[in-house]
Protein backbone atom coordinates (compact mmCIF):
# COMPACT_ATOMS: atom_id res chain seq x y z
CA UNK A 1 0.00 0.00 0.00
CA UNK A 2 2.74 2.38 1.08
CA UNK A 3 4.84 1.32 -1.90
CA UNK A 4 1.98 2.04 -4.32
CA UNK A 5 1.42 5.43 -2.75
CA UNK A 6 5.14 6.24 -2.99
CA UNK A 7 5.25 5.16 -6.64
CA UNK A 8 2.19 7.28 -7.41
CA UNK A 9 3.72 10.34 -5.82
CA UNK A 10 6.96 9.82 -7.75
CA UNK A 11 5.03 9.33 -11.02
CA UNK A 12 2.98 12.52 -10.49
CA UNK A 13 6.11 14.48 -9.56
CA UNK A 14 7.96 13.22 -12.64
CA UNK A 15 5.03 14.12 -14.89
CA UNK A 16 4.85 17.58 -13.31
CA UNK A 17 8.56 18.16 -13.88
CA UNK A 18 8.31 17.04 -17.51
CA UNK A 19 5.29 19.31 -18.08
CA UNK A 20 7.05 22.27 -16.44
CA UNK A 21 10.11 21.67 -18.60
CA UNK A 22 8.10 21.55 -21.83
CA UNK A 23 6.05 24.57 -20.83
CA UNK A 24 9.04 26.68 -19.82
CA UNK A 25 10.84 25.93 -23.08
CA UNK A 26 7.91 27.21 -25.10
CA UNK A 27 8.19 28.05 -28.75
CA UNK A 28 11.13 30.26 -29.77
CA UNK A 29 9.09 31.91 -32.54
CA UNK A 30 7.44 35.16 -31.57
CA UNK A 31 4.00 35.91 -32.94
CA UNK A 32 3.77 38.59 -35.65
CA UNK A 33 4.53 42.00 -34.20
CA UNK A 34 3.42 44.07 -37.17
CA UNK A 35 0.43 44.30 -39.47
CA UNK A 36 -3.18 44.80 -38.55
CA UNK A 37 -6.79 44.73 -39.64
CA UNK A 38 -8.53 47.55 -41.44
CA UNK A 39 -12.02 47.79 -42.79
CA UNK A 40 -12.47 47.15 -46.51
CA UNK A 41 -12.98 50.52 -48.13
CA UNK A 42 -13.12 52.25 -51.47
CA UNK A 43 -15.12 51.55 -54.60
CA UNK A 44 -13.29 48.24 -55.14
CA UNK A 45 -13.53 47.26 -51.44
CA UNK A 46 -9.80 46.48 -51.24
Amino acid at each position, binding site marked *: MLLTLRRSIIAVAAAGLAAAFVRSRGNPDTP*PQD*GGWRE*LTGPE*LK
Partner: protein
Amino acid sequence: MRALVLGVGAVGSRVARQLLSGGSVEELLLVDDDLSVAEEAAHSLGPPAEALTVNALRQETRVERFRERCAGLDLVVLTAPTDHRAFAEAALSSGCHVVSTSDDLETVQELLALDPVATNANRSLVVGAGFSPGLTCLLARHGASQLDVIDEIHVAKFGTGGPACARQHHKALRSDGLDWRNQRWEKRRGGSGRALCWFPDPVGGLDCYEAALADPVLMLAGFPEVVRSSARVAATRRDRSTKWLPMLRRPHPEGMIGAIRVELRGWQKEVRSAIVLGALDRPAAAAGTVAALAGRWAVDGRFTRTGSGGLSVVVGDTIAMLDELAALGVRAAVFEGARSDFV
Protein backbone atom coordinates in the same frame (compact mmCIF):
# COMPACT_ATOMS: atom_id res chain seq x y z
CA MET B 1 -42.27 39.42 -51.56
CA ARG B 2 -43.90 36.55 -49.71
CA ALA B 3 -41.51 34.72 -47.40
CA LEU B 4 -41.40 31.97 -44.80
CA VAL B 5 -38.77 31.58 -42.11
CA LEU B 6 -38.48 28.09 -40.62
CA GLY B 7 -36.99 28.19 -37.14
CA VAL B 8 -37.39 31.31 -35.05
CA GLY B 9 -34.30 31.12 -32.90
CA ALA B 10 -31.34 33.48 -32.66
CA VAL B 11 -30.77 33.43 -36.44
CA GLY B 12 -34.36 33.01 -37.67
CA SER B 13 -35.67 36.01 -35.72
CA ARG B 14 -32.83 38.14 -37.19
CA VAL B 15 -33.67 36.93 -40.69
CA ALA B 16 -37.31 37.89 -40.20
CA ARG B 17 -36.40 41.33 -38.87
CA GLN B 18 -33.98 41.98 -41.74
CA LEU B 19 -36.54 40.89 -44.34
CA LEU B 20 -39.15 43.22 -42.87
CA SER B 21 -36.76 46.15 -42.51
CA GLY B 22 -35.82 45.76 -46.19
CA GLY B 23 -39.42 46.61 -47.12
CA SER B 24 -41.74 45.20 -49.80
CA VAL B 25 -42.66 42.11 -47.75
CA GLU B 26 -46.37 41.39 -48.17
CA GLU B 27 -46.45 38.15 -46.20
CA LEU B 28 -44.02 36.74 -43.63
CA LEU B 29 -44.72 33.36 -42.06
CA LEU B 30 -42.72 32.44 -38.96
CA VAL B 31 -42.72 28.68 -38.47
CA ASP B 32 -41.35 26.98 -35.38
CA ASP B 33 -41.88 23.70 -33.56
CA ASP B 34 -42.69 25.79 -30.51
CA LEU B 35 -45.69 27.88 -31.56
CA SER B 36 -45.36 30.21 -28.55
CA VAL B 37 -41.85 31.20 -29.68
CA ALA B 38 -43.11 31.95 -33.19
CA GLU B 39 -46.05 33.92 -31.78
CA GLU B 40 -43.78 35.96 -29.55
CA ALA B 41 -41.54 36.81 -32.52
CA ALA B 42 -44.53 37.66 -34.74
CA HIS B 43 -45.97 39.90 -32.01
CA SER B 44 -42.63 41.65 -31.63
CA LEU B 45 -42.26 42.20 -35.38
CA GLY B 46 -45.86 43.16 -36.02
CA PRO B 47 -47.80 42.76 -39.30
CA PRO B 48 -47.37 41.19 -41.78
CA ALA B 49 -45.50 38.64 -39.63
CA GLU B 50 -47.67 35.66 -38.76
CA ALA B 51 -46.84 32.67 -36.53
CA LEU B 52 -47.62 29.04 -37.22
CA THR B 53 -46.30 25.55 -36.67
CA VAL B 54 -46.16 22.48 -38.88
CA ASN B 55 -45.69 20.02 -36.02
CA ALA B 56 -46.83 16.47 -36.57
CA LEU B 57 -45.96 13.08 -35.15
CA ARG B 58 -44.82 11.74 -38.50
CA GLN B 59 -42.04 13.46 -40.41
CA GLU B 60 -43.87 12.92 -43.73
CA THR B 61 -46.93 14.75 -42.41
CA ARG B 62 -44.75 17.55 -41.11
CA VAL B 63 -43.07 18.01 -44.50
CA GLU B 64 -46.43 17.80 -46.30
CA ARG B 65 -47.90 20.51 -44.06
CA PHE B 66 -44.81 22.60 -44.74
CA ARG B 67 -45.19 22.09 -48.49
CA GLU B 68 -48.80 23.30 -48.29
CA ARG B 69 -47.69 26.45 -46.46
CA CYS B 70 -45.06 27.13 -49.14
CA ALA B 71 -47.63 27.41 -51.94
CA GLY B 72 -47.60 30.89 -53.44
CA LEU B 73 -44.48 32.03 -51.58
CA ASP B 74 -41.33 33.47 -53.17
CA LEU B 75 -38.76 32.65 -50.52
CA VAL B 76 -38.14 30.10 -47.78
CA VAL B 77 -35.31 30.60 -45.30
CA LEU B 78 -34.35 27.48 -43.35
CA THR B 79 -32.76 28.27 -39.99
CA ALA B 80 -34.03 25.32 -37.94
CA PRO B 81 -31.29 22.94 -36.82
CA THR B 82 -32.49 19.82 -38.71
CA ASP B 83 -34.29 18.40 -41.77
CA HIS B 84 -33.07 21.00 -44.25
CA ARG B 85 -32.99 18.56 -47.14
CA ALA B 86 -36.63 17.50 -46.82
CA PHE B 87 -37.86 21.06 -46.31
CA ALA B 88 -35.70 22.41 -49.14
CA GLU B 89 -37.10 19.81 -51.54
CA ALA B 90 -40.65 20.65 -50.46
CA ALA B 91 -40.05 24.39 -50.90
CA LEU B 92 -38.40 23.95 -54.30
CA SER B 93 -41.27 21.79 -55.50
CA SER B 94 -43.60 24.63 -54.50
CA GLY B 95 -41.62 27.06 -56.63
CA CYS B 96 -39.82 28.93 -53.83
CA HIS B 97 -36.23 30.11 -53.69
CA VAL B 98 -34.54 28.55 -50.67
CA VAL B 99 -31.82 29.82 -48.35
CA SER B 100 -30.31 27.49 -45.76
CA THR B 101 -28.17 28.71 -42.87
CA SER B 102 -27.06 25.23 -41.81
CA ASP B 103 -23.37 24.81 -41.07
CA ASP B 104 -23.66 21.06 -40.58
CA LEU B 105 -21.28 19.25 -42.92
CA GLU B 106 -23.67 16.42 -43.86
CA THR B 107 -26.60 18.79 -44.35
CA VAL B 108 -24.54 21.01 -46.63
CA GLN B 109 -23.48 18.00 -48.71
CA GLU B 110 -27.10 16.87 -48.99
CA LEU B 111 -28.25 20.32 -50.06
CA LEU B 112 -25.50 20.65 -52.67
CA ALA B 113 -26.69 17.32 -54.08
CA LEU B 114 -30.09 18.95 -54.73
CA ASP B 115 -28.55 21.04 -57.52
CA PRO B 116 -30.43 19.18 -60.30
CA VAL B 117 -33.74 19.63 -58.45
CA ALA B 118 -33.18 23.37 -57.97
CA THR B 119 -31.89 23.84 -61.51
CA ASN B 120 -34.90 22.03 -62.99
CA ALA B 121 -37.19 24.21 -60.90
CA ASN B 122 -35.23 27.29 -62.06
CA ARG B 123 -34.87 28.35 -58.44
CA SER B 124 -31.89 29.23 -56.22
CA LEU B 125 -30.96 27.02 -53.29
CA VAL B 126 -28.37 29.01 -51.39
CA VAL B 127 -26.46 26.65 -49.11
CA GLY B 128 -24.62 27.68 -45.95
CA ALA B 129 -25.74 31.30 -46.03
CA GLY B 130 -24.67 32.35 -42.54
CA PHE B 131 -21.60 33.76 -40.85
CA SER B 132 -19.35 30.74 -41.42
CA PRO B 133 -20.03 29.32 -43.91
CA GLY B 134 -21.75 32.17 -45.72
CA LEU B 135 -19.84 35.38 -45.24
CA THR B 136 -16.64 33.29 -45.47
CA CYS B 137 -17.67 32.11 -48.96
CA LEU B 138 -18.48 35.66 -50.03
CA LEU B 139 -15.12 36.93 -48.74
CA ALA B 140 -13.31 34.11 -50.53
CA ARG B 141 -15.02 35.01 -53.81
CA HIS B 142 -14.20 38.68 -53.25
CA GLY B 143 -10.55 38.00 -52.39
CA ALA B 144 -10.21 35.68 -55.37
CA SER B 145 -10.75 38.60 -57.72
CA GLN B 146 -7.48 40.08 -56.45
CA LEU B 147 -5.34 37.05 -57.29
CA ASP B 148 -4.51 35.61 -60.72
CA VAL B 149 -4.41 32.02 -59.47
CA ILE B 150 -5.74 30.58 -56.22
CA ASP B 151 -4.46 27.29 -54.90
CA GLU B 152 -5.26 27.38 -51.18
CA ILE B 153 -8.19 28.57 -49.08
CA HIS B 154 -8.11 28.31 -45.29
CA VAL B 155 -10.99 29.36 -43.07
CA ALA B 156 -11.10 29.83 -39.31
CA LYS B 157 -13.98 30.88 -37.11
CA PHE B 158 -14.52 31.87 -33.53
CA GLY B 159 -17.72 32.10 -31.53
CA THR B 160 -21.24 30.73 -31.69
CA GLY B 161 -24.71 32.19 -32.15
CA GLY B 162 -27.71 30.71 -30.41
CA PRO B 163 -28.12 27.37 -28.59
CA ALA B 164 -28.42 25.35 -31.82
CA CYS B 165 -25.15 26.86 -33.02
CA ALA B 166 -23.43 26.00 -29.72
CA ARG B 167 -24.65 22.40 -30.02
CA GLN B 168 -23.38 22.28 -33.59
CA HIS B 169 -19.98 23.59 -32.44
CA HIS B 170 -19.83 20.77 -29.87
CA LYS B 171 -20.85 18.17 -32.46
CA ALA B 172 -18.35 19.49 -35.04
CA LEU B 173 -15.43 19.18 -32.62
CA ARG B 174 -16.47 15.62 -31.83
CA SER B 175 -16.58 14.62 -35.51
CA ASP B 176 -13.97 14.25 -38.22
CA GLY B 177 -13.26 17.25 -40.39
CA LEU B 178 -12.62 17.14 -44.12
CA ASP B 179 -9.56 18.80 -45.66
CA TRP B 180 -9.06 19.01 -49.40
CA ARG B 181 -5.46 18.11 -50.21
CA ASN B 182 -4.01 17.20 -53.57
CA GLN B 183 -7.27 16.38 -55.31
CA ARG B 184 -8.80 14.28 -52.54
CA TRP B 185 -10.61 14.60 -49.24
CA GLU B 186 -8.63 13.71 -46.13
CA LYS B 187 -10.31 13.12 -42.80
CA ARG B 188 -8.93 15.04 -39.83
CA ARG B 189 -9.83 14.14 -36.28
CA GLY B 190 -11.92 16.82 -34.61
CA GLY B 191 -9.86 18.78 -32.08
CA SER B 192 -6.55 18.00 -33.83
CA GLY B 193 -4.33 20.14 -36.06
CA ARG B 194 -3.89 23.17 -33.82
CA ALA B 195 -3.09 26.41 -35.63
CA LEU B 196 -2.77 29.90 -34.21
CA CYS B 197 -5.12 32.11 -36.21
CA TRP B 198 -5.36 35.88 -35.99
CA PHE B 199 -8.87 37.27 -36.05
CA PRO B 200 -9.95 40.91 -36.36
CA ASP B 201 -9.35 42.95 -33.20
CA PRO B 202 -10.24 42.77 -30.38
CA VAL B 203 -10.45 38.96 -30.72
CA GLY B 204 -6.81 38.61 -31.82
CA GLY B 205 -4.89 35.33 -31.91
CA LEU B 206 -6.64 32.10 -30.93
CA ASP B 207 -5.79 28.42 -31.19
CA CYS B 208 -8.01 26.80 -33.80
CA TYR B 209 -8.61 23.13 -34.48
CA GLU B 210 -9.96 20.79 -37.11
CA ALA B 211 -13.68 20.00 -36.89
CA ALA B 212 -16.52 18.82 -39.11
CA LEU B 213 -17.04 22.17 -40.82
CA ALA B 214 -18.77 22.77 -44.12
CA ASP B 215 -16.52 25.53 -45.45
CA PRO B 216 -14.04 23.37 -47.40
CA VAL B 217 -16.89 21.59 -49.24
CA LEU B 218 -18.50 24.88 -50.22
CA MET B 219 -15.15 26.41 -51.15
CA LEU B 220 -14.31 23.52 -53.43
CA ALA B 221 -17.66 23.89 -55.19
CA GLY B 222 -16.77 27.52 -55.89
CA PHE B 223 -13.06 27.05 -56.53
CA PRO B 224 -12.49 23.61 -58.07
CA GLU B 225 -8.91 24.59 -58.94
CA VAL B 226 -7.66 24.79 -55.33
CA VAL B 227 -5.22 22.12 -54.15
CA ARG B 228 -5.70 22.74 -50.42
CA SER B 229 -8.70 23.84 -48.47
CA SER B 230 -9.26 23.58 -44.73
CA ALA B 231 -11.41 25.00 -41.97
CA ARG B 232 -10.73 25.30 -38.28
CA VAL B 233 -12.69 26.47 -35.28
CA ALA B 234 -11.42 28.22 -32.18
CA ALA B 235 -11.85 26.02 -29.14
CA THR B 236 -10.82 26.04 -25.50
CA ARG B 237 -9.20 23.18 -23.60
CA ARG B 238 -12.57 22.50 -22.00
CA ASP B 239 -14.26 22.32 -25.41
CA ARG B 240 -11.76 19.73 -26.59
CA SER B 241 -11.54 17.66 -23.42
CA THR B 242 -15.32 17.39 -23.08
CA LYS B 243 -16.14 17.00 -26.77
CA TRP B 244 -16.98 13.29 -26.37
CA LEU B 245 -19.45 14.01 -23.56
CA PRO B 246 -22.96 15.42 -23.87
CA MET B 247 -22.89 19.18 -23.35
CA LEU B 248 -22.24 19.65 -19.66
CA ARG B 249 -24.38 22.71 -19.30
CA ARG B 250 -27.25 24.30 -21.15
CA PRO B 251 -26.02 26.41 -24.09
CA HIS B 252 -26.29 30.17 -23.78
CA PRO B 253 -29.29 31.83 -25.49
CA GLU B 254 -26.99 34.14 -27.45
CA GLY B 255 -23.23 33.96 -27.96
CA MET B 256 -20.82 36.82 -27.48
CA ILE B 257 -18.82 38.43 -30.25
CA GLY B 258 -17.53 36.10 -32.97
CA ALA B 259 -15.08 36.40 -35.81
CA ILE B 260 -14.15 34.77 -39.09
CA ARG B 261 -10.96 34.71 -41.10
CA VAL B 262 -10.44 33.61 -44.70
CA GLU B 263 -6.95 33.21 -46.08
CA LEU B 264 -6.40 32.81 -49.81
CA ARG B 265 -3.05 31.85 -51.19
CA GLY B 266 -2.03 31.92 -54.80
CA TRP B 267 -0.16 33.86 -57.42
CA GLN B 268 -0.40 37.45 -58.49
CA LYS B 269 1.78 38.56 -61.41
CA GLU B 270 3.98 35.47 -60.90
CA VAL B 271 4.62 36.38 -57.26
CA ARG B 272 3.44 34.17 -54.42
CA SER B 273 0.73 36.12 -52.60
CA ALA B 274 -1.74 35.73 -49.78
CA ILE B 275 -4.86 37.71 -48.95
CA VAL B 276 -6.44 37.52 -45.51
CA LEU B 277 -9.99 38.78 -45.08
CA GLY B 278 -12.16 38.66 -41.98
CA ALA B 279 -15.13 40.01 -40.10
CA LEU B 280 -16.15 40.59 -36.52
CA ASP B 281 -19.76 40.41 -35.38
CA ARG B 282 -22.27 38.52 -33.30
CA PRO B 283 -22.50 35.26 -35.27
CA ALA B 284 -26.31 34.98 -35.10
CA ALA B 285 -26.85 38.61 -36.08
CA ALA B 286 -24.41 38.41 -38.98
CA ALA B 287 -25.84 35.06 -40.11
CA GLY B 288 -29.37 36.51 -40.07
CA THR B 289 -28.29 39.50 -42.13
CA VAL B 290 -26.40 37.39 -44.69
CA ALA B 291 -29.31 34.93 -45.04
CA ALA B 292 -31.91 37.67 -45.45
CA LEU B 293 -29.81 39.47 -48.04
CA ALA B 294 -29.15 36.21 -49.90
CA GLY B 295 -32.90 35.58 -49.97
CA ARG B 296 -33.58 39.03 -51.33
CA TRP B 297 -30.92 38.57 -54.03
CA ALA B 298 -32.42 35.19 -54.98
CA VAL B 299 -35.90 36.63 -55.35
CA ASP B 300 -34.60 39.62 -57.32
CA GLY B 301 -32.66 37.29 -59.65
CA ARG B 302 -29.31 38.89 -58.84
CA PHE B 303 -27.33 35.66 -58.55
CA THR B 304 -25.26 34.48 -61.50
CA ARG B 305 -27.15 31.21 -61.73
CA THR B 306 -30.00 29.21 -60.30
CA GLY B 307 -29.48 25.80 -58.71
CA SER B 308 -27.76 24.83 -55.51
CA GLY B 309 -24.54 26.42 -54.27
CA GLY B 310 -22.82 28.49 -51.64
CA LEU B 311 -22.26 32.22 -51.91
CA SER B 312 -18.84 31.57 -53.46
CA VAL B 313 -20.66 30.00 -56.42
CA VAL B 314 -23.76 32.12 -56.94
CA VAL B 315 -22.55 35.66 -56.22
CA GLY B 316 -21.01 37.50 -59.15
CA ASP B 317 -20.94 41.08 -57.91
CA THR B 318 -19.25 40.63 -54.53
CA ILE B 319 -18.66 44.35 -54.13
CA ALA B 320 -22.40 45.09 -54.33
CA MET B 321 -23.24 42.38 -51.80
CA LEU B 322 -20.48 43.43 -49.39
CA ASP B 323 -21.61 47.04 -49.76
CA GLU B 324 -25.18 46.09 -48.89
CA LEU B 325 -23.99 44.01 -45.95
CA ALA B 326 -21.90 46.94 -44.70
CA ALA B 327 -24.96 49.17 -44.89
CA LEU B 328 -26.73 46.60 -42.70
CA GLY B 329 -23.87 46.63 -40.19
CA VAL B 330 -21.85 43.58 -41.27
CA ARG B 331 -18.44 44.91 -42.26
CA ALA B 332 -15.51 43.03 -43.70
CA ALA B 333 -11.86 43.71 -42.96
CA VAL B 334 -8.51 42.91 -44.53
CA PHE B 335 -5.30 41.99 -42.71
CA GLU B 336 -2.26 43.67 -44.10
CA GLY B 337 1.27 44.60 -43.27
CA ALA B 338 2.64 41.22 -42.17
CA ARG B 339 3.54 37.99 -43.88
CA SER B 340 0.88 35.32 -43.46
CA ASP B 341 2.02 32.30 -41.45
CA PHE B 342 -0.96 29.92 -41.58
CA VAL B 343 0.49 26.43 -42.13
